[in-house]
């Protein structure tokens, strides 16, 4: 038989036979119990053996054979969940079976995420099957007929939680971690996008369904118990909780979470209206230029060129529209410039976890909101302080993705807190003490150090999470400075002092903005937002504090100094010097100087930074109102506040601006920001036309990025008077 033959081929038949035998030893439906489940006499031993198969066979050999066989044998749904469902609520004697079930479940539901480099033939063979069966596991766990599986699983670690920390032993601590891993696995399983669906609706395994189940089975209470006691009653569970929370909230919009139902409905309606409007505008754009006759009508026109030459363009859509015919001439060219294939390319393709928006249902939104509110009230400070300490000390349990999840989570909850404040604005002013753990010096040190590290290492995903966090902190501080409480004002002033005093912070923001190249949309969005918020706050702050000082660090050149010394005719002894003295000389020298916002701003207006914002503006039809505004403010600043419009006079940028207003596919005219953009572009064009008339050499320069040496002349028409020293 073909099926059996292919089955034999996938896994060694002996292995398969042994695992099947073990699975049937676990138990099965019994006739004497009217078909209900009955555990076998050797149930516990069989479960232990199956666990050993996963460890000693699969993990040791780096294969997926045992997992595959267990998936085929329907172990999870047929046995493990039934065993858990039978576990009586009030049990007197010690029972090891639920724990064995849990360890097996955690291993079987664990996300299989291999890098391409370590995938072997065996992985490729089994992965699709196992991934699809994991979807089945999730469905069975969430929607079991008779029992609350999640709640049952949590019961396993309740004895451990009931004990104070000093009485708990290592094994008990790990029970809690196992349960958390199980919850994380349930959250992370989703249908792999590249595999076929069984035709069913996936709404029963979507995030909303998990949130509903968590709410019904009191998992949220369990999570809150752990997070609020973090650092005191629980310590080594911090990263496990972090993972569970991260996968619970990733992709969910914190702003929408706190909207009133009516406002949310109207916001959603507006969104839909906007989309329909957009589609209408798009279709109208096509219809305006669509051919009015059939497609074999055969029109051909000449485009006159100089020297009595002509180019031919076909199709009646180009009739009577010179602009159209030029566009068509360009469009019909077949050659495309080969695209850059760098190592960043893969990151662009692969979306970040938190890049994908996840919609949730109304009731799930309510449940999650109450969790988030409770979390902010009770757990924000303990959890994030404990995690910061673990990350700082670089504990063994802190994996490379944990800092990313940490910073993302902090930024998410800060945003949620701001949304909550906005909602309860009418009520009495609350202090920002609930989120104080991320507004202290230790946190800033960790954040700054991490940011610098990820910039140096070029870990863009991690850097993106740090930037989101930094942006949210800036926004929170800004909100604090508008608070009515004296204490909050002081703290906000203090934090701003600290952030803006260090010149390294300023430099880093510029450096990040400059370094954008093919990192994908999420990075682009995040880094431009950070730059926008940072620049705006700094401007405001430096206006209030006119004599703002910054501390800059400069490395003195030891060699230079030595050369100067030897020139001065010092003896050899001094040149060789003792190492201690050299160290002192080579040490970083810290200086303080007055901060000049205009000069700092000018450093933002360099070509690489402008290119980043141009890259953002190129996606104009996919941007939301905030992003469009961000780009608009930046270009406005460049062209008019800083009088560096000449940096924008580049043919591709001008073409982009022209396209945004005049098409093809222009910005939607009904958008509120359209008028702003039109005015801006018009002003830039006006100056451009004037400049080209005054200085025809600009025609050539418009092809290139400007050289600093000639920029001043092009802008002003005369050279900058340089005082000779």
């Amino acid at each position: 038989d073909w099926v059996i033959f292919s089955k034999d081929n996938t896994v060694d038949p002996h292995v398969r036979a042994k695992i099947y035998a073990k699975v049937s030893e676990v138990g099965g439906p019994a006739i004497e119990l009217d078909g209900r489940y009955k555990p076998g006499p050797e149930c516990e031993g069989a479960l232990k053996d199956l666990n050993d198969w996963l460890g000693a066979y699969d993990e040791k050999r780096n294969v997926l054979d045992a997992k595959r066989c267990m998936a085929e044998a329907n172990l999870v749904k047929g046995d493990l969940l039934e065993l858990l469902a039978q576990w009586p609520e009030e049990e007197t004697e010690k029972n090891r079976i639920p724990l064995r079930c849990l360890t097996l479940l955690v291993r079987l539901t664990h996300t299989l995420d291999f890098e391409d480099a370590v995938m072997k033939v065996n992985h490729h063979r089994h992965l699709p099957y196992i991934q699809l069966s994991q979807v089945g596991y999730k469905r069975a766990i969430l929607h079991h007929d008779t029992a609350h599986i999640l709640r049952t699983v949590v019961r396993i670690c309740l004895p451990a939680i009931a004990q104070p920390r000093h009485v708990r032993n290592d094994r008990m601590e790990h029970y809690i971690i196992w349960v958390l891993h199980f919850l994380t696995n349930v959250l992370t399983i989703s249908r792999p996008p590249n595999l076929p669906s069984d035709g069913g609706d996936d709404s029963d395994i979507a995030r909303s369904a998990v949130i509903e189940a968590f709410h019904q089975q009191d998992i949220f209470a369990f999570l809150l118990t752990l997070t609020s006691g973090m650092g005191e009653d629980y310590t080594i569970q911090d990263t496990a909780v972090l993972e569970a929370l991260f996968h619970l909230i990733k992709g969910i919009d914190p702003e929408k979470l706190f909207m009133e139902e009516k406002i949310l409905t109207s916001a959603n309606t507006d969104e839909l209206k906007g989309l329909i409007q957009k589609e209408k505008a798009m279709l109208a754009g096509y219809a305006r230029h669509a051919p009015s006759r059939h497609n074999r009508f055969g029109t051909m026109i000449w485009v006159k060129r100089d020297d009595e030459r002509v180019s031919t363009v076909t199709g009646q859509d180009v009739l009577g529209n010179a602009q159209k015919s030029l566009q068509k001439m360009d469009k019909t060219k077949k050659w495309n410039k080969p695209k850059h294939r760098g190592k960043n390319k893969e990151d662009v393709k692969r979306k970040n976890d938190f890049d994908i928006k996840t919609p949730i249902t109304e009731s799930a939104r309510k449940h999650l909101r109450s969790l988030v509110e409770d979390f902010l009230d009770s757990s924000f400070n303990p959890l994030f302080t404990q995690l910061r300490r673990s990350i700082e000390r670089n504990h063994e349990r802190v994996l490379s993705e944990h800092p990313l999840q940490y910073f993302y989570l902090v930024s998410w909850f800060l945003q949620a807190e701001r949304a909550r404040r906005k909602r309860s604005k009418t009520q009495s002013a609350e202090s920002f003490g609930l989120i104080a753990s991320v507004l202290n010096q230790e946190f800033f040190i960790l954040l700054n150090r991490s940011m610098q590290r990820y910039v140096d290492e070029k870990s863009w995903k991690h850097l993106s999470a740090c930037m989101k966090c930094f942006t949210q902190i800036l926004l929170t501080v800004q909100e604090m400075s508008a608070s009515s409480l004296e204490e909050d004002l002081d703290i906000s002033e203090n934090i701003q002092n600290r952030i803006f005093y260090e010149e390294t912070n300023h430099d880093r923001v510029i450096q990040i903005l400059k370094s954008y190249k093919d990192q994908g949309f999420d990075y682009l969005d995040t880094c431009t937002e950070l730059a926008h918020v940072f620049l705006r706050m700094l401007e405001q702050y430096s206006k209030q504090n006119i004599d703002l000082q910054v501390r800059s660090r400069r490395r003195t050149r030891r060699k230079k100094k030595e050369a100067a010394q030897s020139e001065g005719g010092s003896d050899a002894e001094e040149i060789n010097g003792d190492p201690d003295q050299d160290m002192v000389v080579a040490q970083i020298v810290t200086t303080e100087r007055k901060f000049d916002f205009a000069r700092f701003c000018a450093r933002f207006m360099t070509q690489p930074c402008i290119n980043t914002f141009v890259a953002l503006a190129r996606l104009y039809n996919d941007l939301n109102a905030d992003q469009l505004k961000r780009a608009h403010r930046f270009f406005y600043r460049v062209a008019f506040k800083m009088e560096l419009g000449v940096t924008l006079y580049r043919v591709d940028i001008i073409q982009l601006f022209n396209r945004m207003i005049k098409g093809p596919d222009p910005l939607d005219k009904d958008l509120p920001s359209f008028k702003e953009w039109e005015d801006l572009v018009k002003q830039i064009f006006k100056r451009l036309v004037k400049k080209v008339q005054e200085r025809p050499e600009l025609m050539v320069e418009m092809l290139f990025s400007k050289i600093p040496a000639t920029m001043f002349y092009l802008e002003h028409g005369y050279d900058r008077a340089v005082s000779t020293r």
Partner: protein
Amino acid sequence: DGSETGLGIDEEVKIAKARKPVAKLDETRLLTPAGIPKLRRIAKTRVKFRGKGHEFSDVARLLNTYQLWLDDLYPRAKFADGLAIIEKLGHSKRMQMMRKQWIDEGKPRENTEQEADE
């Protein structure tokens, strides 16, 4: 050893047909008369603007001028691709020297120089 003593006459001569080289948009092409020099000529003679109130049509005409110029210079590339290639070329030392020179030619001559010439 036969190949050493013989003159290689007996060996069959293999003719590998060379691929026709693809024309490239590089500095050399950009500096031919059809390149930047032509653009400079156009800038001085043929670019006309209607001025105030016609910003968009003026810029559209300007962009068309560039597109037709680029199409003449390097018909293979689309407008946006061609612009990207040229922009990149502008980073080289040689191009930067040339650009500086073109700008300096357009500058009004300073008084001191004029006096020295006279």
